[in-house]
């Protein structure tokens, strides 16, 4: 099954809607709750990254027999140094985003910890593509 979500930058009021939809879909399919937890954490962090950093983006989620794949594409500033961005505690989030309790530099590490496969490609000034797989 395939889901496509359009994500609007800076609109925190709908952040989490994609994760919530996918969580419900996985529950309906009786997916192992431990796997659902991992998928939801990774997807939510990906959603927040698009909202917090990009102008807009899309998230495509494929729920397959043996895995869940998430394709996150955003049109934003891009990540200058992906290795640095992956390190715990590093963030370029704005002050207003930090005041909400986001931007602690834990998002990408959270995704990595919960994903079986996590790949990022980014072009400065254009945007970022991420591919996340969690095996069921």
């Amino acid at each position, binding site marked *: 099954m395939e889901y496509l979500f359009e994500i609007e930058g800076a609109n*925190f*009021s709908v*952040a*989490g809607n994609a*994760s*919530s939809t996918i*969580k419900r879909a996985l529950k309906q399919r009786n997916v192992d709750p431990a796997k659902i*937890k991992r998928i*939801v*954490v990774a997807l*939510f*962090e990906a959603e*927040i990254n698009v909202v917090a950093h990009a102008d807009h983006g899309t998230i495509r989620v494929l729920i397959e027999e043996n895995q869940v794949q998430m394709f996150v594409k955003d049109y934003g500033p891009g990540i200058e140094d992906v290795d640095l961005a992956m390190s715990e505690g590093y963030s370029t989030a704005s002050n207003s985003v930090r005041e*909400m*309790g*986001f931007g*602690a530099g*834990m*998002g990408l*590490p*959270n995704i990595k*910890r919960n994903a079986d496969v996590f790949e990022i490609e980014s072009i400065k000034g254009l945007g970022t593509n991420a591919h996340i797989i969690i095996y069921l």
Partner: protein
Amino acid sequence: MKLSEIIKKLDLVVLNAANEDEDIKSAYASDLLSDVMGNAEAEELWITMQTHKNVAAIASLKDIPAVVLINNGKPDVDMLEHANLENVAVLVTNLACYEFCAKLYNLINCEL
């Protein structure tokens, strides 16, 4: 320990129709949302000073049944609306984080 007992013994103000029969075994105190996403467990109480809508969204995603706002925190209108929708209880204490955590810890652990 039942949420209803925690509410009563720690004088929590209940802002919505809380599911007071929830069994609470532990809690997680943090204002960093990715910390809660990454480290809180289902069925824990979440103690925080954050009062915006994403708090309710994260509580729901993590199966956290109740959020405690410290220092008489006032939730944004859309946080409370979203919490109602997702069946997340929103509770308020006049205590600061340290005092509330200490009291809750004693309450839960004396009971065990």
